[in-house]
Structures are given as structure tokens and as C-alpha cells.
């Protein structure tokens, strides 16, 4: 019990104070229907969970983020490794990465909808687009940051170039890849909301948009809180899995 408290006590106090401040601001400072207090939002959330609307929206967004994020990472990691390891590949691909990464995913929404329609295709495309460049850049930077002595030691131990790539360069890059993926996950939330605001039939972004259209202020806040909590939970989960499954790849050494 004590260990649990020392581990999570800070979070509990932090969240409670957040909701308390929100309550105070909403009830005493603003006191307007346009800024509902947490209790009202919670009651609305319970209603939306009961009739299944909230879970439907939530699940739609999660599915899209996961699919795009996994696909973007799976594409980005090998490209990043190749760019970091082979100069000609880097020279060849840099025009793509350096050109495209300055066009934000949000700016690509229109093109995505024209190409892939307003269904799943355009959302997954946008999340892949958001994910891939961060993962590529971090992976390539990770390869570049490998201590030269790690490579030299392997050479002096008789490793071939291919072995050095597989047994030294790849594992040494894992912490950078994971960092890139974590950043990409954060950006995916921004992108999915923007995409769903503009063109979607369900999802947390669509819920926001409907809330605005029909003046359902409570719905808007439910959606916002869900986004925050979801992002927080996913990030913690990511950190926890890195710690548990890839602890030995932590950047300490």
C-alpha cells in the first residue's frame, strides 16, 4: 500500500488538483454553460458510455492511430537504419525526408481525402505520414550516434560488416527508435483529431465537431478529457513497455 502510494500518489494528487482547479474556475470564475464543471462532464460521459456513443468514437480513433502508427514505424525503422548506415542511401532519400517533413500532416488532410475518401484509408495514411518521418530521423540519428569504438571493437573481434550491422548497429539504435516512436505517438493524436474534425463519420474529432455544430458543450468537454486521458495512458503504457521489455536498451550505456 505504501509502495503503491509512493509510486502513484503524486499522480493522484496531480489529477485531483487539476479537476479541483477546473471546478473552481468553472463554477466561481467563469460560471457559464460554455465552460461546464468536471461533475457535469462526468455525468455526460456516463450517459455517453451507457448509450455506446463514446466508446464507438473512442475505439474508432484508437484503431486509426494504432494502425497508422504501427505501419509508419515498420516502414520508418528500416528506412532510417539504411539512411544512417549507407551514405548514398542517405543522400538519395534526404530530399524526400527533408522536403516532406516540413509539410505538416494537417496540411495533407485535403489531399488525403481526395485520394482515399473520408473512410479509414485517409486517416491511416495521415497517421503513417505523421509517424514515418520522426521515426526515420530518430533512427538515422541513432545510427550516427553509435560510438565508433563499438564498431571498432567488433571489427577487432572478427565480425563482418553484415554482422556489425545486425549485432551492433541495430541494437545500439533501439533507444533512439523507441524515442522516435514515442514522439510519433504524441503527434498522431494531433493529426487524428484534425483529420476527424474535417472528414469522418466517427472518432473523437468528429465528436468535437458535432458538439460545435449542435452546441453540445458537454460533449465537447467529454471528448477533450478523453483525448487527454487517452494520450496520458498510452504514453505511460509505452514507457512501461520500454522499461519492461527493452530495459537493457535504455540509453544509460
Amino acid at each position, binding site marked *: 500500500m505504501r509502495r503503491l502510494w509512493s509510486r502513484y500518489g503524486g499522480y493522484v494528487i496531480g489529477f485531483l488538483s487539476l479537476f479541483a482547479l477546473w471546478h473552481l474556475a468553472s463554477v466561481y470564475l467563469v460560471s457559464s454553460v460554455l465552460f461546464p464543471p468536471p461533475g457535469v462532464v462526468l455525468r455526460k460521459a456516463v450517459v455517453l458510455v451507457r448509450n455506446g456513443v463514446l466508446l464507438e468514437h473512442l475505439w474508432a480513433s484508437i484503431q486509426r492511430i494504432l494502425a497508422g502508427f504501427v505501419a509508419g514505424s515498420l516502414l520508418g525503422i528500416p528506412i532510417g537504419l539504411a539512411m544512417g548506415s549507407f551514405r548514398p542511401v542517405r543522400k538519395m532519400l534526404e530530399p524526400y525526408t527533408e522536403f516532406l517533413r516540413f509539410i505538416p500532416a494537417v496540411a495533407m488532410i485535403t489531399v488525403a481525402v481526395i485520394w482515399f475518401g473520408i473512410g479509414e484509408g485517409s486517416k491511416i495514411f495521415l497517421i503513417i505520414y505523421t509517424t514515418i518521418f520522426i521515426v526515420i530521423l530518430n533512427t538515422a540519428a541513432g545510427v550516427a550516434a553509435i560510438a565508433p569504438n563499438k564498431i*571498432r571493437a567488433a*571489427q*577487432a*573481434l572478427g565480425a563482418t560488416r553484415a554482422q556489425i550491422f545486425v549485432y551492433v548497429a541495430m541494437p545500439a539504435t533501439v533507444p533512439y527508435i523507441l524515442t522516435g516512436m514515442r514522439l510519433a505517438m504524441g503527434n498522431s493524436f494531433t493529426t487524428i483529431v484534425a483529420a476527424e474534425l474535417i472528414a469522418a463519420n466517427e472518432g473523437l474529432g468528429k465528436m468535437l465537431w458535432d458538439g460545435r455544430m449542435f452546441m453540445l458543450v458537454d460533449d465537447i468537454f467529454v471528448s477533450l478529457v478523453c483525448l487527454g486521458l487517452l494520450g496520458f495512458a498510452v504514453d505511460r503504457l509505452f514507457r512501461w513497455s520500454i522499461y519492461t521489455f527493452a530495459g537493457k*536498451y535504455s540509453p544509460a550505456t
Partner: protein
Amino acid sequence: MALVCFRDVQKSYRPLQGAEWVAVEHFSVDIEAGEFFCLLGPSGCGKTTVLKMLAGFEAPTAGEILMEGRPVTGASRDRGVVFQGDDSLYGWLTAVENVEFGLRMRGMARGERRERAMRYLELVGLTGQQQKYPAELSGGMKQRIQIARALVNEPKMLLMDEPFAALDAQTRSLMQEELRSVWRTTRTTVLFITHDIDEAVTLGTRIGVMRAGPGSRVKGVLDVALDGARDRTDDVFLRYYKQVYEMIRDEVAKSLLRAD
């Protein structure tokens, strides 16, 4: 013929800006099989450059380096390397996995390579620490892993680049003693780079003193006829220390002037 011959070796670097820098010039020395050769010199004199060329990490710009009569063309497991810092260790592998890295690359069966690695971990005094990751071990222990990792490959010689320079004084002298006993067991030829006279006299069977850079070369070579455990308070030890000190004193002064 000597195991290793440096013949009139030169290494110069061409920086992106400014004049060409000649690190080593007319560098010639022979290293015999079975000896513990200490290469001693003031900082920045190109000692490490010599080691990198023999390891095969860098090619000389002139002259040649022969090992068993054949020119050195690249890194090879004939020449094991122990680096100064710990950044050559693989942080995602345990101590024993680090040690067996070379054997694994050779495709040796798991059981056999584990058994050999354990033997060498014992040799360097790391029994019981084999399942720890490098980050969990002290600086001295990490250097032991490096030594075991190089030796388990049974190289024809061991190249050591100031391996104890980053350790505290007590650990350093302990490591020196242990390295000496490891060397007496294995009789692997060693090229040991250091800037520490005490370390050179403690470990070496021969000491090569280098001139200050640029264009550094060997100023003189000294045979150390000390056997058994070397005692720092022994008269003979002190006489060698003084002899080396006098050889290197002017060079250190020169390198300091250059640094200013």
C-alpha cells in the same frame, strides 16, 4: 623476424581547414612475440595513432606495418583491442555475452562459447558478475570485461590503449597487478599505450619512449630486466623510473610549450 615491425611509418591528417597535421613520422620499432611492450609518451604525441594503425582501424600514409611478415590491411581478430573508455562495451549484452561476442560471430556453438567465456571471466576475476549488464558494473570491472572479451578470442597480440587511465589510483594499481599476472599466465604479446612512467615500469618488459609531436617517433627503447612482482620501492625499479623520466622529461616540456 619480430612479430610486428613498424617500418618508417608516417601518419598525417588533412583537416577540413588549415595545414596538414603530421602525427607520426619515421616511426620504426619491432615488437617480439611474447613481450609486453609499453609505448610511453607525452599527451598528444600520437601514441593512440600508432595503436589504431596496428589494429587496422586507420592506414598509415607512408611506410609499412608488418605482422608476421605480412602487411596489416585492416582489423583482424589476430589483434585484440582494449579501449580506454567503456564506450566499446555493448550495453544491451550481459558481461558474459560481451565476452563471448567474438566467438558468437565465428559461429561457435552456444555451450562451448559460454564455457570458454566463463573461463576468461574467471581469469580476470569476474566470476559471479557474468549476468550483470555493463551499466551495473564499476569502471574497473568494465575494463576486465574488455580484457576478457579480447583474450577469449585468442588473438596473436593484445593492443591496449591506456586502459586504466580513467580509473582511480587504487583500482588502477590493482588492475596493473592483475594484468601482469594474466600476462604471465597467457604470455600473449602486448602493446600497451600509456603516459604514466610508473605504469610502464610496472608492466613492461620493454619501454619505447616517444618524442613530443608533431611528427613523433620513438626516441629510445629500454629493456626492463625486472622479474616477478615489481615493487615500487625497490631500488632497481626506481632506477628504471629515473632513467625513463629523464628520457621523457624534455618531451613533456616540449608538448606543454606547444599546447600553450
